[in-house]
């Protein structure tokens, strides 16, 4: 089972690839839109890439609840354990 830090680090690489945000900026307390400037279409790309990377399903309805990097990491952890 991946640790929280492993998930955050892998997610940071996805966000970097798609939106060009430096990996070190993608920390748990950061908001995707307000802090990292990830727009809504890029967020969809991040979600789909995360689904493939972590082998989880992230329903479209859930995406609006993933405000911070920490929200996304927690969701992925729960989905992997569930």
């Amino acid at each position, binding site marked *: 089972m991946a640790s929280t830090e492993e998930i955050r680090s892998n997610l940071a690489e996805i966000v970097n690839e*798609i*939106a*060009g945000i430096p990996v070190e900026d993608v920390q748990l307390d950061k908001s995707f839109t307000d802090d990292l400037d990830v727009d809504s*279409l890029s967020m*969809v*790309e991040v979600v*789909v890439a995360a*689904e493939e990377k972590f082998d989880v399903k992230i329903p479209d309805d859930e995406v609006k609840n993933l405000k911070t990097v920490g929200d996304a990491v927690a969701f992925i952890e729960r989905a992997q354990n569930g």
Partner: protein
Amino acid sequence: MSKTRVVITGLGATTPLGGDVTSTWEGLLAGRSGARRLTDEWVQNLAVQIAAPVAVEPTEVIERVKARRLDRTAQLAVVAAREAWADSGLEDSGLDKERLGVAVASGIGGLHTTLSNYDALQQNPRRVSPLAIPMLMPNSSAAYVSLELGAKAGVHTPVSACASGNEAIWLGLDQIRLGRADVVVAGGAEGAIMALPLAAFGMMQALSKRNDDPEKASRPWDVDRDGFLLGEGAGILILESYEHAKARGAKIYAELAGAGISADGHDIAQPDPTGSGARRAMERALSEGDLTPADIFHINAHATSTPQGDIAESLAIRQALGKEADHAVATAPKSMIGHLLGGAGAVESVATVLALKNRVSPPTINVDKLDDAIELDVATEQRKLPDGDIAALNNSFGFGGHNAAIAFKTL
């Protein structure tokens, strides 16, 4: 009411001969071919395996994150637009962006995006990019150029197959003459060297099949021509009202004197063999530019290297210019860069402007034996153009019977 005079104050290009205007122009003057045999895996089953890809990959120039949001065609447009914009010096001129328009054409649009997302769809619908639509829409190049420069007058995308690039310049000229803009960033782009277009143009019997000798494949006006060579790239010209350019002390390359559009009304793919539609486009460009055939000393022909098209255009030029065609040097850049589809007219307009500015016609390569049916003064070596006030025509014709001729003159 007198016409607003419009001039060219900036040029940009990325082509099979180079990643900018200077390298492209040097390649044209040197008679260099940008053609090569493709080695990609996807080409192996195709009848036509040759093309003229751009010399510099746009992803080497555009920032990575930006590049992945742009189709290849829009990437090429943005590269050329950045160069033209920088060349014009307009960024620091205090230009009101509500007076800045864009007209950037494409013949096909974001085909890379369309095809790659169709492949993704077959695997899993969730792999389709949320950016697919803004990337594949035909106006994507014009839109991204306008975003890049902050242009807030109209943003336009003429689509008329291989006449598109010239139609964009025609449209840009009108925008300035109608008082809707002071400056228009005009041109065209295409990045469509892919299996589908190569197969589809190949099935039309439109492409040269000289797979074993790619640099000899595009041979406009030669007796042994057997079709065009698919190229890719973009050309952008900064069109500016003369008053605006003069007021800011801009460098001026040439005057955009007139532009003429016509339709063949003949066939979806074949040119009117009498050349009537093409003749009317040239005549309109001349009359709108207050020019006569005697003013024309350089003709950048459409000349794609197809058996019928080259002859129809030669007839049309003879009809439009009459005896004065004797002193007009005809040149066919497609012999070197191939056919850039929606980018063709734009890149060749850049070349036409430089021919006037430098008073030299680039050569046409591969004319080993001129077809007897071609009654033009074809230069196979560089040819010096005369001093004094002279003008030039640039022709582009497209499937659908679209004809677009642009007249430039020295200033």
